């Protein structure tokens, strides 16, 4: 299966001496990367190590300050992604590159040369979707899709273009294990067809499983390239961070008696009257973490939105610390102590063009330290942003840089830090460690445990089973808008969990 290293022919991609600086940051410094034709090549490194920047340079989105790029042995100069696409390079970005108000089909065929022929495109999307098990409906508006589905559309976009070199920047961060398996099955198939895959992930076991070779970046430079078969996850972590792998272990239970969140008979209907959430009952006590497992699209997003008050509910009641908040608007709920880590940090959690300290204020407009009476407190917000940056290890030249200048993982840390500020009573966390490196993941898990010990109630929606099993006190499985199983994370195995998630195994619904 492994690509023959002595195979004739030039490398599929060769980057030499790439350097790229942003104001105050050296993102890439003299980076070398050689990717052989027909291999799966992984790139690993801490948050902010420069992985995405390097990939964007290869894709023509960013122009390097110096260095050369060769594709199949030929020197190229990409002025825009259009040039890279012409050279047969396709990229799935770390953050979704989708237009919300266009249909899936429109997003997929956008930018292709030639006549716009929706009928032909629909057929082709149907074929690819069936062949790679993507389950994509071409005529839906992207706006209505969750992160998992968006991720699959991104992958479809690249497949549709018939790219020979595919760059995948953290494609698995929001996919559940079954979906990840599917994707990797597809990758193996693509490689068999002679395609080259460049792949970024923070899930090291995954990296070792699918990659042929791994290049490690640290602080913008190449550390080394190793054969995937010759390293363990621990060694890989060591190369990246110089640290050890974390394990999410629940310490002694901190669950108290008082109920923080009570949800009774909660139903949500779509505009068309379909049940998205039916009769969900749930209670989370202070100091308790309730994990929600499930394949995306089975009602998790609706549950979260209903709790936040951003989606109208059909029936049911929600209480927070004994008070009925069903009719409260979102702002009041947030002021009452609900923190929220959204599944898509860029779309729902940040103002990308605004400085970090302004982003700190979001959702806390009326509370100290970011406000004083009716006024925004610049000083308070800036100081508290500096605290978050230090406490959560957000890599940034300062709190005045716009949010887009942070790497994906560092944006995530900022959001997590913000939502844990001001001692919330309840934290609604969707994929809280999405896209952060192993070190930062351990840090966030620790922070969550500390907050839990102090009485925080957490609703944890995650695709990462390890995270769910390690952090939760109680585990619920959602399928088709219902809670279909309540499990004890101490005894359940990932395989069992997977069966409940896909509906193979069932349990009497317990509210």
């Amino acid at each position, binding site marked *: 299966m492994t690509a023959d290293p002595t195979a004739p022919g030039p490398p599929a991609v060769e980057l030499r001496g790439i350097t790229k600086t942003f104001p105050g940051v050296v993102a890439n410094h003299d980076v070398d990367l050689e990717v052989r034709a027909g291999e799966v090549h992984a790139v690993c490194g801490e948050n902010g190590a420069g992985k995405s920047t390097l990939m964007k340079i290869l894709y023509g989105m960013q122009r390097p300050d110096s260095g050369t790029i060769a594709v199949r042995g030929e020197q190229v100069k990409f002025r825009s992604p259009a040039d890279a696409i012409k050279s047969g390079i396709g990229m799935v970005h770390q953050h979704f590159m989708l237009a919300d108000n266009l249909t899936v089909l429109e997003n997929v065929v956008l930018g292709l040369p030639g006549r*716009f022929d929706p009928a032909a495109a629909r057929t082709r999307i149907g074929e690819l979707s069936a062949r790679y098990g993507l389950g994509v409906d071409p005529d839906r508006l992207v706006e209505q899709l969750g992160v998992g589905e968006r991720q699959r559309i991104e992958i479809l976009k690249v497949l549709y273009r018939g790219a020979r070199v595919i760059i995948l920047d953290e494609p698995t961060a929001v996919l559940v294990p079954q979906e990840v398996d599917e994707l990797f099955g597809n990758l193996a198939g693509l490689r068999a067809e002679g395609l080259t895959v460049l792949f970024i992930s923070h899930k090291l076991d995954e990296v070792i499983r699918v990659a042929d070779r791994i290049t490690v970046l640290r602080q913008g430079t190449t550390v080394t390239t190793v054969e995937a078969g010759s390293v363990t996850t621990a060694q890989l972590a060591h190369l990246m961070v110089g640290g050890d792998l974390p394990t999410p272990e629940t310490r002694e239970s901190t669950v108290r008696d008082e109920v923080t969140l009570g949800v009774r008979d909660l139903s949500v209907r779509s505009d068309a009257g379909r049940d998205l959430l039916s009769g969900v009952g749930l209670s989370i006590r202070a100091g308790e973490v309730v994990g929600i497992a499930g394949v995306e699209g089975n009602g998790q997003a609706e549950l979260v939105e209903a709790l936040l008050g951003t989606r109208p509910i059909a029936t049911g009641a929600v209480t927070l610390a004994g008070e009925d908040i069903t009719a409260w608007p979102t702002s009041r709920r947030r002021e009452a102590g609900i923190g929220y880590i959204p599944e898509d940090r860029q779309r729902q959690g940040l103002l990308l063009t605004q400085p970090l300290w302004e982003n700190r204020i979001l959702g806390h407009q009326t509370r100290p330290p970011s406000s004083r009476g009716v006024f925004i407190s610049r000083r308070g917000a800036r100081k508290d942003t500096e605290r978050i940056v230090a406490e959560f290890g957000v890599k940034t030249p300062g709190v005045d840089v716009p949010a887009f200048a942070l790497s994906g993982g560092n944006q995530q840390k900022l959001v997590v830090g913000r939502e844990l500020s001001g001692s919330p009573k309840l934290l609604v966390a969707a994929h809280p460690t999405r896209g952060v490196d192993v070190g930062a993941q351990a840090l966030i898990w620790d922070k969550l445990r500390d907050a839990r010990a102090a009485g925080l109630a957490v609703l944890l929606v995650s695709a990462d089973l390890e995270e769910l099993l390690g952090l939760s006190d109680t585990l619920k499985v959602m399928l088709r808008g219902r809670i279909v199983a309540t499990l004890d994370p101490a005894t359940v195995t990932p395989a069992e969990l997977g069966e409940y998630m896909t509906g193979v195994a069932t349990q009497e619904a317990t509210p």
Partner: protein
Amino acid sequence: MTAVIERPAAPPVRAPWRDRVRRAAIWAALVFVTLAVVRQVTGANALTSAGTVNDAIGLAVPIGLAALGGLFSERAGVVNIGLEGMMIFGTWFAGWAGYQWGPWAAVLGGIAGGALFGLVHALATVTFGVDHIISGVAINIIAVGATRYLSSRFFLGREDGGVNQSPSVPLIGRVGVPGAGGPLGTLEGKHWFLVSDLAGLLRGLFTDVSLLTILAVLLVPAAFWLLWRTGFGLRLRSVGESPVAAESLGVPVYTMKYAGVVISGALAGLGGAFLVTVYDGKFLENQTGGRGFIGLAAMIFGNWRPGGLAAGSALFGYTDSLRLREGSAAVHALLLFAAILLAILAIRAGVTRRWIPAGALAVAAVGFGVVFAVTDQVPAVLTPLVPYAVTLVVLALAAKRLRMPAADGLRYRKGETG
């Protein structure tokens, strides 16, 4: 773990194209029947007379052209409050070209003049990142002063020309379905319910119509086709929705924005040329009379879609035509029309259980109804105002959920975000 992943399928939400056309047809019929009823009740025969209809089209066209201009610009993500200014330049260049080389040259001149200042707006907003509103307002201000200056340079001293008008421009020819006018006119004169109304409508639509009007009306489906059925249109809309996503697929974002704004200017300029070559037969100062702004409003209430903006423009044109032809009596009847229309909308909202909009619509309907019932005619000072008020209220309340392009009005810099 090779279990099949269950992915709940959801039905597509956007109604198919055919459905939307059918719905539009039903609404048009409903509005028409309402008008017929109101005419019968109030005896204001002008409501559906051929003259009113004919004028209404003429008045709607420049507004609609400005609105189409706004559509192209805003779909590409550039707010274009400078439509009025581009239209003014359109009128001037139409006058300048028209008096020398005839009416069709005037049309080309208007298009070119508008496009030129569309280019200026694109340069300012896309290349230099100037705030869209500021650039647009600047264009509007410059347009007034610049055309006056240009007139004094080019028109002063010529026959009929002056600092505030151009020499005469021949009008564009008008056509009609031969032989249709007579019988329809007779029928219309009978004032039979619905039958005479239909005759009036048809006579207004098919006799004595300017060639440029026909062209302009055809531009609405053409715009729809271009924006929603071609690759060019998809690329143009994509930069208004998510320029980063477009960029990442190799769409030349700046070029598409330029294209949208220049087309926008050209359409606004064409609207200006229409005023010159169909109405006044010359360039006049203040000829546009705020139609650029009204066009922008029609586009917004038309939900950034060609069909919607055409409906909005038609409503503006119609109410204005009534006012101009018949004055306060017809305008008074308009109040009843608005009341009934709003009541229908209220019922629709009520049926779908959207209580708040239903309530707002009902209140507005009752309001118009009461004013109609307790007054005999609209005071002369308010007559010019009522058509706009009626149009705005109806449009604002009829529009269910307005959705502007997601990246409309935002500055975009290559390689910054994402």
